């Protein structure tokens, strides 16, 4: 069970304020290596150049949505097994089901609390502290 400090995270959300909030939440949970990008295209480039253990991505983004991003990650032979947690809206049941088919590891419904994010990460990585 890796401690949070050992897990490299990439946060992908088109909203700067949301990225900052997720970053602060992750820092409070003990994460040290947190990168963030405003969209999947930039994130894919960064992750391929320097791999991470966990991707936390919004679904609703203008250029490429979270499902397309997940698909791109999963079909990449190098980064394909990276843990992927998707942030969705409360009405996005169908999206969660599609994400499950594509191999998402977990999902968090926006708006979410720090506890909800922690719980979903721990379901994949085990206890963070």
């Amino acid at each position: 069970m890796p401690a949070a400090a050992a897990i490299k995270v990439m946060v992908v959300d088109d909203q700067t304020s949301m990225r900052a909030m997720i970053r602060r939440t992750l820092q409070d949970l003990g994460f040290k290596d947190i990168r963030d990008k405003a969209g999947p295209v930039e994130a894919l480039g960064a992750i391929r150049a320097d791999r991470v253990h966990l991707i936390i991505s919004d679904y609703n983004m203008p250029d490429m949505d979270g499902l397309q991003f997940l698909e791109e990650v999963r079909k990449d032979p190098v980064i394909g097994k990276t843990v992927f947690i998707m942030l969705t809206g409360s009405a996005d049941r169908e999206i969660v089901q599609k994400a499950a088919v594509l191999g998402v590891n977990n999902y968090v419904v926006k708006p979410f609390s720090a506890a909800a994010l922690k719980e979903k990460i721990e379901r994949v990585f085990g206890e963070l502290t």
Partner: protein
Amino acid sequence: MRRVSIIQGENHVSGEPDVVISTLLGSCVAVCLQDPVNRVGGMNHFLLGEPGKDDMVHHRDMARYGVHAMELLINELMRRGGIRSQLRAHLYGGANIIAGLGSIGSSNAAFARRFMETEGIAIGHCDLGGTQARKVEFVPYEGKARSRSVAEIPKIIAAPVILASNDGDLELF
């Protein structure tokens, strides 16, 4: 005109020409956003800017925080055909009217301004701060908003409470 009233934690989006969205504000802030090209707009109403580090808040109360309320409003606008880069904002509320609540109103007003700056959303009309409650009306199709001072102090519906986390009912994992 069809009138839609919202309270804290709610938002409403419309592209109909006969809709007016209204709300009553004290220390809370309402942000009116509109895409003037696609004629769609909406208003939210939030109680506080962001949850504190140790706050455990029930899922259903999260939209009372500005950071989440803005996300919900922007996403709904985009879903209805709005383009993020074309959004313009009018900001209202953030008064310090209730003794004992300190400067919550000022903090909320500062959050709203900072958010628009950070996200690159142009601010149109702005009526923030002061010590009086406001009634705000917004016609989303036109993008026109107005506010006026009122004597009535809006009721604050129970502050966000500490409860177990909840993140939806679809158990896949």
